[in-house]
């Protein structure tokens, strides 16, 4: 095939993005597992590991810029590189949210969570799943899957509303719950943002496949 080095560079970049995605997905799962099991050491590890994610994203972006400068990519190649830069930055941000969850967990210290965690791990699972599917859809240019991801975001949003209302009522019932509930609301909010970022990634599938910028409603 013509331009074999270049084609290989594009493939490596694509692989790196998937690798970054799996690092971020792991960070989400680990941050919530550590929160649930009150494993502060594990929470601390998530905080430290986020530096690796940040560095990886920067290196990936530099690789993309190099290819743009040196190979003058066009058409779908150009769209792919722009997409990788954009999606990598979404993923880096998701990594920050996971780190945020870990920091809250550390701040909670030895105290148990206000209530047994059921919906928050579910949100985390959904968010991580959306990310995984989003990256899959980017690889296979699966527009149907992209639309499905956006629909899942609505479910995550209503779950967040539900969690918020529940925790708010805890606070109203007893001011002693305020601190514990605030921590959890904060975490639920971070998880809701993760689903939003995953939706942004799904929107990029549309751009990559069709060249059209589109926001899912």
């Amino acid at each position, binding site marked *: *095939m*013509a*331009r074999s080095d*270049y*084609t290989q560079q594009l493939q490596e970049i694509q692989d790196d993005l998937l690798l970054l995605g799996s690092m971020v997905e792991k960070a989400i799962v680990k941050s919530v597992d550590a929160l649930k099991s009150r494993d502060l050491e594990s929470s601390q590890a998530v905080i430290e590991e986020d530096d690796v994610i940040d560095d990886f994203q920067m290196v990936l972006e530099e690789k993309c810029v190099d290819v743009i400068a040196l190979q*003058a*990519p*066009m*058409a*779908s*190649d*150009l*769209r792919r590189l722009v997409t990788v830069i954009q999606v990598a930055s979404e993923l880096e941000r998701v990594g920050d949210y996971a780190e945020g969850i870990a920091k809250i967990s550390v701040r909670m210290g030895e105290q148990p969570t206000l209530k047994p965690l059921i919906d928050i791990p579910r949100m985390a699972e959904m968010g991580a799943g959306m990310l995984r599917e989003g990256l899959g859809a980017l690889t296979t240019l699966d527009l149907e899957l992209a639309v499905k991801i956006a629909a899942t975001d609505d479910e995550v949003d209503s779950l967040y509303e539900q969690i918020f209302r529940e925790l708010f009522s805890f606070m109203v019932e007893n001011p002693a719950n305020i601190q514990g509930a605030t921590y959890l609301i904060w975490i639920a909010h971070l998880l809701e943002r993760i689903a939003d970022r995953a939706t942004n990634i799904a929107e990029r599938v549309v751009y990559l496949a*069709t*060249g059209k910028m589109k926001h899912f409603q």
Partner: protein
Amino acid sequence: MINLNAGRAGRDGSGDEGRGGNGEASRETVLKTRNLSFWYGEKMALADISLDMREREVTAIIGPSGCGKSTYLRLFNRMNELIPRTRVEGEVLFRDTEINGPRVDAVELRRRIGMVFQKPNPFPKSIYDNVAYGPKVNGFRGNLDELVEESLRRAALWSEVRDDLGKSGLALSGGQQQRLCIARALAVEPEVILMDEPCSALDPIATTRIEDLISELRDDYTIVIVTHNMQQAARVSDRTAFFMVNENGAGTMVEIGPTGQIFTNPVDERTEAYITGRFG
């Protein structure tokens, strides 16, 4: 001779304002081919090309070597008829007039549709005479000095040669020679400028000069540029047409569209393969 102005009749009421005007909506088709095919002897070089080029737009034609893009460009000022045993089928229209019609004067046509070639080809004469030659031949009766200055200014060469107008055109650098050729083309007040790889013999700085010049000229002229340099097409043109050879070795047009679209999201997979460098 047929009145080549016929197609512009509707605009004449607006006088000269029409040219420098801002009328995006009123952008007319200046050059047009319909089902155009062309032969060098028995060899079909272009097959069934239908394409419009619009007023005061830069249309770039890109494609691999041998795809007929230069041949296509040269049809518009009947340069191909200077080659023996060539044959045209289909229509080549300049403002809706068939330019191959028996009563169209090729000399007048070439005045109105100027051409700039790959290699700068100034006459072995002074800078002044290079520019003044065309108007003189065409019986220009105005102030020749002013016309020469104006043409050199438009070609962005005046400031570099104003004190050396008597110097030979051949003594200029390659980039300056090419701008001199553009000044020479502008001096006869054409409506269309055809450019056949105008920068291929120039260094990057001279190329940038010519590209900047094309951006300025597009306000007043309809420009068609053939280029091997895709980045150049992307930088200077409003619309881009992609040509390639068909299974019989004849040039065909694959796709034309707004330049931004052609380079980010072409419709045809052959265009995609070519511009991403994965041709063949």
